[in-house]
């Protein structure tokens, strides 16, 4: 089955497909280079003695080599979850396709780079504090008013008491 049957009709093949194609091409050309002719050429003495065995040895050699190489590739893909990463990266690249300017890259200095990651939390914290402060100030204003009224009332009571005292002098 052709591994490139993706849902999108993208002009460019995805990374996974390029990867597979490139590896297949490598193997093809390697096998072509190590042709049976070449093999026989090198092992001429043995070939003269055992032509059929030579053929079967060669066939086994080539098929085993191909199998080992394909297995190694599969292992690398599994270990690194390459299929998944390739398709994520394809998506990310597709989303950035209209953007021309170079994107941000890590500066290599962690203290510099971590700043921007903390900013959103700090901004949230700041708006929380601002709101809490406003609410508290409003509350305190009301309580202060009550305190002032209370003082007035106490002064009033003291005056009334004084008046009574004087009336009884």
């Amino acid at each position, binding site marked *: 089955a052709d591994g490139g049957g993706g849902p999108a009709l993208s002009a460019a093949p995805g990374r996974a497909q390029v990867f597979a194609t490139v590896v297949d091409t490598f193997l093809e050309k390697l096998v072509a280079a190590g042709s049976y002719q070449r093999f026989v050429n090198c092992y001429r003495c043995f070939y003269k003695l055992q032509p059929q065995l030579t053929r079967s*040895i060669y066939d086994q050699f080539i098929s085993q080599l191909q199998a080992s190489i394909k297995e*190694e590739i599969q292992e690398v893909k599994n270990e690194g979850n390459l299929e998944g990463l390739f398709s994520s990266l394809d998506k990310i690249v597709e989303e950035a396709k209209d953007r021309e300017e*170079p994107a*941000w890259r890590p500066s290599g200095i962690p203290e510099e780079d971590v700043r921007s990651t903390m900013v959103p939390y*700090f901004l949230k914290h*700041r708006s929380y504090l*601002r709101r809490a402060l406003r609410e508290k100030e409003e509350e305190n204003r009301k309580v202060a008013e009550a305190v002032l009224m209370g003082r007035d009332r*106490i002064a009033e009571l003291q005056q009334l008491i004084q008046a009574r005292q004087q009336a009884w002098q």
Partner: protein
Amino acid sequence: MSVDPMAYETQFFGFTPQTCMLRVYIAFQDYLFEMMLVVEGVMLKKLDGIPGCKISPSQIRKCTEKFLVFMKDHFDKLFAKMEEVLLQLVLNIPKNVLLPEDRVQEEYPYSKEEFQALQDELQQLQQQCRAEAAAEQALRAELEEQKAVKAELEKILQCFDGLENICREHGAGNFKESFALLTQSSKKLQDVLKDVEEKSKKMKQHDQLL
């Protein structure tokens, strides 16, 4: 030729692309050598079983080396081409691409000074909150005190009002005046008493001196 460390790609893939390629190269090469040894081994075994064989193991070894040199040469060239394509097209992140995990970097590009200003602002806000909390405590404490004082004062006022009500009930309108007169005369009495005391003290002193 400067070597591109491909740090951003490493961040994404979790491995360095070049290291991955090297690992694969070594693995492939190992398989190639292994297979060649197997080939050689099979041939040698076969020759062992043939009596009077004119082919020596060292001849076979020379054949193997010849084939291997040839294969290795093509292998290296082909692998180099494959590696180039993979590093350029597959295991790479184009310059205009920003990984999603780094979006904050472009959303909130704060300089050192701007960041410091933000932190300072937060500190200031926290201080202000603390001050408001302290003010609240003080205000509420006074409110509590006021409650107690008011209660006391109102009690006293009630006492006075109570007295007036008694006077009114018993028709002693002049009770206040007579009570006031009483307080006045008791005060006068107290003054007189004090006078007498002082005078007697002085007389005693005189007596003592005499």
